[in-house]
């Protein structure tokens, strides 16, 4: 090796006269195919040399550029031994030569396949779809494997006959619905948490708040007529008795600031601060002839009952 190359190592720069110099290299399909020759510039990166060598062998690297190849590049050491895969693909060829890389390279072509947008190395040529999905970090319980443009899923435990470059698609099921619906407690023995979830499913913006031992349900964005109300949307807070649902919901708090064209909030009682916000208690109750019924009433029906207040209809004060 010319001393100028070694000298360049000290200042990390190749002498100008070598900059356009091309050298002859040998490459083979690792480990023991016939070596063929190609040329590369001393200033080429090892990644570029890797790609040129693959082109010389007529078998492109996978995945294709600009992705980093999953194939491996090695060099032949003395006594016909092979190096470990070269990991620093960014270094220039001349510097790699200085560091001991030889001109005899070997490309380890791996059994690289693609699932969706990802490339990976298959565990074996006869891997099953289950094994292939698992090797790509996909749960075979959640994904089915298809050939590209295939309409039927591949049988999960039937061995494949994999070729380098094969492409597959892994598709999930689409699950919708409610986990709680199927197991939802019978009306009258449900929890307020069940009801908040059901209310959310019904399109309300509801959340449970716990202050000390007292639970409240906050419901936001209730549409109200404006005028007479000063805003088109209201937030309400419903106190939940510890004995819910046998202990019924009753009345509610209205989030402040809120105004009414009459100058005061109808049925407004006293103001309290709960969860950092001011609320006015609204005296709005079920009629004696139609009291709370835990087998029939729940959070969603109570919100409907509270809406009646803003619409001036329904129940007595």
């Amino acid at each position, binding site marked *: 090796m010319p001393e100028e190359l070694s000298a360049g190592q000290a200042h990390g720069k190749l002498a100008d006269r070598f900059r356009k110099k091309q050298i002859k290299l040998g490459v083979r399909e690792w480990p023991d195919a016939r070596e063929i020759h190609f040329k590369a510039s001393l200033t080429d990166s090892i990644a570029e040399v890797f790609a040129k060598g693959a082109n010389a062998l007529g078998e492109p690297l996978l995945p294709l550029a600009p992705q980093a190849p999953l194939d491996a590049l090695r060099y032949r050491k003395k006594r016909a031994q092979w190096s470990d895969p070269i990991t620093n693909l960014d270094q220039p060829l001349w510097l790699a030569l200085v560091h001991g890389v030889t001109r005899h390279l070997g490309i380890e072509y791996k059994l690289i396949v693609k699932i969706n947008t990802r490339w990976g190395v298959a565990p074996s040529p006869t891997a099953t779809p289950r094994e292939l999905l698992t090797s790509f970090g996909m749960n075979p319980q959640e*994904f089915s494997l298809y050939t590209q443009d295939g309409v039927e899923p591949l049988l999960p435990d039937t061995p494949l006959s994999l070729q380098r470059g094969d492409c597959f698609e892994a598709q999930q*099921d689409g699950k919708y619905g409610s986990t709680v619906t199927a197991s939802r407690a019978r009306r009258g023995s449900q929890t307020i948490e069940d009801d908040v979830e059901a209310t959310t499913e019904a*399109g309300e913006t509801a959340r449970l708040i716990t202050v000390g031992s007292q639970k409240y349900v906050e419901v936001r964005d209730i549409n109200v007529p404006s005028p007479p109300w000063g805003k088109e949307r209201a937030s309400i807070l419903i106190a939940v008795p510890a004995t819910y649902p046998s202990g019924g919901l009753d009345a509610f708090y209205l989030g402040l600031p809120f105004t009414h064209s009459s100058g005061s909030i109808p049925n407004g009682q006293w103001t309290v601060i709960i969860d950092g916000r001011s609320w006015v208690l609204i005296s709005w109750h079920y009629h004696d002839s139609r009291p709370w019924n835990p087998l029939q009433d729940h959070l969603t029906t109570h919100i409907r009952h509270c809406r009646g207040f803003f619409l001036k209809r329904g129940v007595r004060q």
Partner: protein
Amino acid sequence: MLLVGRNTHPQRSSLLVREVLAPHEGDLKEQEHGAITFSSRYLGRALLRVRELGLAGFITVHTHPGCDTRVGFSPYDDSSDPELMANLYDLQPTGVFGSVVLGDRAAQG
């Protein structure tokens, strides 16, 4: 499933439904009260049809029976749908995918 194409109007871009892909027998793995599962085969068929027609993507549609003027995704929908959407975008990064839930007189997407 609603197979959609892009309307690339400069001021009012939108998605237009090109085709409704109804499920075939076996396309719905679960179809009980309160839950529905679109099989991967059904979703895959939608994706193949989207590619065949050169469309943008598809929208899954399911209903919440009992919801009238207000409807929203359930916590279960919210927990499972992002995974499905991530899967669809992994299959077709340039696609457009989404989901809609319907009540009797309301929709959310």
